[in-house]
């Protein structure tokens, strides 16, 4: 498979493909495309299930108290479900009243989630901490099992995957919730796994004699050729159940599956087309730096 592809030396093409996609994602983020859910900024979310009449957005808005109706975001879920997102609702009583009003208007069962803005901020900080902690620990682990250069290359691939996932979220405009962060962390685990399988081969195939750029690049190519079939199969095997979740799961599962779908696909790409070229380039740069050193001295 891919017998004629030069993975180590074709980096200009691979980096540009990613670059274009990442740029599109960053533009979408800059234009405010990230749709942060109530988990991160606080607010209330009412979910109507099993409504026995069709109601339109106007009717739902009428059921809300006037001070909330203007800011409410209403989406339809399937045949007989609705989701209404509002700023934080005053108190228990008001929340109960809205629940009753919605249930009366639609004839369905109303579930509620409320997050205070202060807690939203806490969740946001925790999520960021978790991602940073994961990245650091993974780098330490790879440095320990392999070498620092491998860890650096894996890190580049991981940043690529995170940005790609967040970028796609901004482009599509799906709601970013706590579950999205969980998905991103999971993607990190997956992507590193993919990268490690390749690095493990490179380590196994690298001759013990000293570094030589051409030989090392050939080793990278040979290693990738040996495991690329596995990489593709693994990606397919992971993406099949995830696609099932995306299609058949309800909102939470579907959002989760979307993040995983983008992230795991990006991770499979990055472990082959980003991590390995970065490893090659870094090794070459290090070798160049070491060679130059004695001359300068």
């Amino acid at each position, binding site marked *: 498979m891919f*017998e004629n592809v*030069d993975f180590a*030396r074709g980096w200009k093409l691979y980096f540009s493909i990613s670059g274009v996609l990442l740029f599109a994602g960053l533009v979408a983020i800059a234009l405010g495309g990230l749709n942060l859910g109530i988990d991160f900024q606080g607010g209330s979310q009412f*979910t109507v*299930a*099993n409504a026995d009449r069709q109601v339109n957005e106007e009717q739902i808005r009428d059921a809300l108290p006037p001070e909330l109706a203007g800011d409410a975001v209403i989406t339809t879920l399937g045949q007989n479900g609705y989701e209404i997102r509002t700023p934080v609702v005053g108190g*228990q009583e008001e929340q*109960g009243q809205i*629940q009753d009003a919605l249930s009366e208007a639609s004839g*369905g*069962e*109303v*579930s509620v*989630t*409320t*997050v*205070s803005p202060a*807690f939203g901020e806490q969740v946001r900080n*925790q999520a960021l901490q978790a991602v940073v*902690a*994961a990245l650091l*620990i*993974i780098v330490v*682990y790879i440095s320990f099992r392999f070498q620092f250069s491998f860890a650096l290359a894996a890190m580049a691939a991981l940043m690529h995957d995170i940005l790609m996932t967040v970028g796609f979220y901004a482009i599509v405009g799906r709601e970013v919730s*706590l*579950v999205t962060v*969980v998905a991103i962390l*999971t993607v*990190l*685990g997956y992507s*590193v*796994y993919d990268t*490690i*399988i390749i690095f493990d*081969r490179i380590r196994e195939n690298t001759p013990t004699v000293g570094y030589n750029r051409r030989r090392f690049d*050939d080793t990278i*190519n*040979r290693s990738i*050729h*040996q*495991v690329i*079939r*596995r990489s593709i*199969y*693994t990606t*397919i*095997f*992971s993406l*099949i*159940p*995830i*696609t*099932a*979740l995306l299609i*058949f*799961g*309800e909102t*939470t*599962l579907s959002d*989760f599956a979307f993040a995983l779908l983008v992230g795991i696909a990006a991770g499979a790409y990055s472990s082959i087309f980003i991590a390995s070229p970065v490893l090659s380039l870094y090794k070459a740069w290090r070798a160049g730096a070491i060679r130059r050193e004695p001359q300068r001295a």
Partner: protein
Amino acid sequence: MGSRRNNLIVLALVVVLLGVAAYFIFIKEPVTQSTQLGLDLQGGVSAQLQGSQSGGGKVTREEIQQAADLIRQRIDRLGVAEPDVRVQSDDQIVVQIPGIENPEEVIRIIGSTAQLGFYQVLAADAQPNIPEDEIGATKKDIEETLQDDDAFEKGQTKILFEETPSVQGRGTDVNGYIVNKTPDMTGDALQQNGATVEFNQQTGKRIVSLELTAEGGRQMGELTQSMLADAAASGEPALLGIALDQDMQSAPQVTEPLGQNISISNDSLPEGLPEDEATQLETVLNTGALPVNMTVISETTVGPTLGLSSLKSGLFASLVGFVLVLLLLLFIYRALGVVADIALLIYAFLLWGLIVIIPVTVTLPGIAGVVLSVGVAADANVVIFERIKEEIRRGKTPRSAIQAGYDKGFRAILDGNVTTLITAFILFALSSGSVRGFAVLLALGVVLSMFTAVVITRALLGLLGDRGIQLSPALMGVSKASMTATRQPQQQARVK
């Protein structure tokens, strides 16, 4: 690789494990009860409360623990099934109650500090028969009137409100009272378990009677005495305000000095205090005040219908994904695929068994974790099988190819799974609630998948090889063409 006997022992062990799992899933309890479902799947209320000191000081671990215990007592007194109250961090408590009908009320009970206060009412104002949506505006109105009253002194006094259903049954009567900023007497004066729901012997109306301690009774006597003296001087009736936190519960008129026994009543309604309100009062007063203020920072109420539909769609999606993975393994790896499929089925069943035995509460993200772990489990097989195929292409016999495939594939699987475990642990450490369910199930799935891929698949394959079943390369999904292709000396094609 072990001998035939070893493989048989491993498989016998697996059968025993499957039996144990089946016992716990199906026989010990009906299958519908054996698996613990999270609130997002069965419906219920989950609330996260943050503790804070009124003065802004730091909340101690003991105080939050004490608050959690009190909250648990309060819920128990409500007779709600299986509440789960946990201290989450230094100042947070998570309360989870499955399937209840009136979540707002429950959350109000668990969250109220329930500091009982007795106040001398300094001045009062009331507006009767207010429709529900005008209560807020009316309170503002009353507040403005009272702030102009002579008795109001900024910083020294405060205004408390009482809402009661109107006697005529139309709307709500809103009362505002000026009282001293700090209660004249607090709940400390209450005898242990001193609050009881009772019926007034003369009127037959429902009241909550409060029995005070001896010291409390003495103080109450002094307080009411001085109130009566003030009333005699001003000509206004003497009102004793009884408030829970910042809500006035009732403000009865005092006509003679009171002693150890007083009561909270509502004379405007034919039945007296509404039943649920009386029970709430009794509950929070008897469990005592929380040592710190609790605010609800996040709350989720899931209806049973929504929970059930989430569960159904989640299970259906996982099932579809699982079956597709099984079929694809079969298609790619033929005979090896059959073995992998059997191993995956065993894996799924054992995972279910572990979920029931430990027990792990299955949440919506947890289902996602299980689905992902199916991918991980399938992948462990893929890594090893690809190695085996590679060795076969190099001309090894199936038996030695299987041996080599396991030896070389295991290292990669171990490294890869360790990273997944790392992420699972981070998720567990830095998150709460349903996300933890995901982390736990993912970690469990990863560890179990290594076990099935490395131990069970290997034993199955070993047995197949020993039975003299000829595993031709084609049976293992290796084509003739690819075999000859790789046997030739490898020449890397160089592009550029």
